[in-house]
């Protein structure tokens, strides 16, 4: 039975290698991450070796190989955010959630990603949770935001 992945792949079947990144992006968008199975099937469909696809995917920060949390916390660590002490925001978030950047909590609720620059330097430091932005933060604000997420989930 064709699933979501088939559907995406079939849309790209006529395409060449240069469309690999858009295809991976679309698959990740739809499924949340790139599973081994996805990569194998993309490779089979595009006649590309998995070692190449995996090599390409791991080169770019955007791609994830494990599902992200229901609340995906992106913390900006650009220059402007850095001088506004975003390193402490990262440390605080990691401390509260007891995971490191790039990881997902065991209950699948939260994941942390440190991003280079969101381009909102004028409002630093900035974090985003599932595309909702929080700007001008202090480390002590993080707990409240995370608690808020937990409450919303319940």
């Amino acid at each position: 039975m064709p699933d979501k992945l088939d559907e995406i792949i079939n849309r790209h079947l006529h395409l060449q290698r240069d469309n690999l990144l858009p295809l991976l992006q679309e698959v990740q968008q739809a499924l949340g991450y790139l599973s081994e199975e996805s990569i194998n099937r993309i490779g089979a469909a595009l006649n590309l070796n998995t070692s190449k696809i995996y090599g390409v995917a791991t080169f770019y920060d955007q791609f994830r190989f494990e599902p992200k949390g229901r609340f995906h916390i992106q913390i900006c660590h650009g220059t402007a955010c850095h001088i506004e002490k975003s390193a402490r925001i990262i440390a605080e978030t990691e401390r509260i959630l007891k995971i490191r950047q790039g990881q997902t909590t065991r209950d699948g609720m939260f994941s942390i990603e440190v991003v280079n620059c969101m381009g909102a330097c004028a409002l630093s430091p900035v974090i985003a949770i599932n595309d909702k932005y929080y700007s001008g933060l202090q480390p002590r604000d993080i707990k409240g935001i995370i608690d808020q997420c937990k409450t919303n989930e319940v």
Partner: protein
Amino acid sequence: MPSSNLLSPDKLRDFVLLNKVSDNTPEIEKKLSLIRRDTVTKPVIFVGTGTCGMIAGAGETLQSIRNYLSEKAIDAEIVEVGCIGLCSQEPLVDIQLPGKRRISFTKITAPRVESLLDEVLNSALPDGQVLGQYPHPHLEAWEGVRMLSEMPFFRLQNRIVLSNCGIINPFSIEEYIARGGYKSLTRVLRNYSSEKVCNIIEESGLRGRGGGGFPTGKKWKTALSADADERFLICNGDESDPGAFMDRALFEGDPHKIIEGVAIAAYAINARKAYIYVRAEYTLAVDRLKKGISQATEAGLLGHNILNSGYNLTIQVREGAGAFVCGEETALISSLEGKRGTPRPKPPFPAVRGLFGKPTVVNNVETLANVPAILGNGPLWFSGTGTETSKGTKVFALAGKINNTGLVEVSMGTSLYDLIFHIAGGVREGKRIKAVQLGGPSGSCLPEQLLDVKIDYEALQEAGTIMGSGGLVVMDEDTCMVDIAMFFTDFLQRESCGKCIPCREGSRRMHEILENITRRPVSESGHETLERFKGVMQLENLAGVIRDTSLCGLGQTAPNPLISALKYFREEFEEHIFDRKCRANVCKDLRVFYIDIEKCTGCTACAKKCPTTAIIGSPRNPHFIIEDKCIGCGICYDVCKFVAVFVR
């Protein structure tokens, strides 16, 4: 979009071919005037919904405006616009009442909407939130409200690239055309050969705005004259310098200007396919660009046989996947080909052998955004602005410890001092400026005494930095220069593609050497001290080799932030190394925290949070920090509600 039905695509095309519509020009001109909102029949509310606005809460603002209007059954038009550049004042809301000039209000978060609209829709003004009004020859002025152009922020700018940003509706091709858009493309396609376009751009003196400053016309000519059956144009919007958001604002605020620039450039090098490579993080930008391209295609300004010229062009938007190195042109090309974004050795240069082995021009977004204006006003008009070697204007993203953070465009030749102290309104909270960081990770920090330097490719290079793509971060005395150097070397070692040895291994060693000098003395054995010194001794040789032998620009410029910091802020490095002190109290290992027993209430908040149980004390009595156990993490400092924790 409410305005999109005013003109059909056919009519649009007629308009673009100006001389073809002589008999109904007055009628069309009238419609265009309407599109430009020279007169409006009902109130128009403009909301800045660029990323910066959205982060500041423009989304909620927009929603409450809608609610307000429907609750009160008021007939008004809402227009989303891009960023005008004053990011620190977001969310910005402009209102244009029939017969009156457009007026701008700052920091209109959702709760403030009601009172704002209550007043303004009744022609009154709220207190404190008025930014200024737009000039207009016919419309009635608001009394007692300054002109936006009188504000230092705008007065000292020269907005060519940003002319439409924050003013027009980025979703509306009509509005872009009504303000003279796509005229240059029309002129080029009808009257100019590819060679002629290259000549004009060469004559104008336009240089690459991505940082390198290579003459754009020359690049185009190389690609045009290369022998090939196919050529490509790539617009490089992989803006990943931390601290830069020029491209994002342009994409979001005026996508059609870039599309027009891309189309002209593609025509100039005879490319039938162009790519716009945008960071995937810029979701709004991607969205607006894609819409813009489909509108332009629908209007016959892109696609097959554009304006009957026989020229075909398709533009594809590609999202970058998060690798800083892809801003380097050969790495960008690898990435577009669906490969790992590693750079390739040059020569062959992309203009000779680039994407899929074909001649390819890679231009920065801002470079291309200058193109329509140059073709529209002529090369001499453009070269009339700027300095001997640097013509035109430059867009800067101002960030850091200044009052007016945001996006500005100034003529080449403006001094950094004017930019920071006049346009950006000086340093926040009256603190002293320490340094200005230009050019992101490839650039360097300039100290206060060099701020008189003029914005000019050569002058900046002489001062020891680069023009860069336009990120400008101002640092005050609370910033530690060792920490900043470390931030950039860390960034670079994370973003190094790993292909060549000097950059892959060297940048991380450079970072480690810096890390070592910020490490805590008590945790250090004699051996480590020795290593720390050894590292510092190697630093300059290492930086030299990385610069000398790296494969691409990322590696070659990787030592810049460090070398410049060493040059201008040597004493701060020496303090870290010899005195083990960080004067800005940033390097956390070198910080020692104390509790002011006068202020401490014994609430135990700090003791509970301390990860190393270095804080002792009984409830309701003053607490103490055991210095040997303290790791300087600063959590106690952050959690103390009584400001009792301090750093010495």
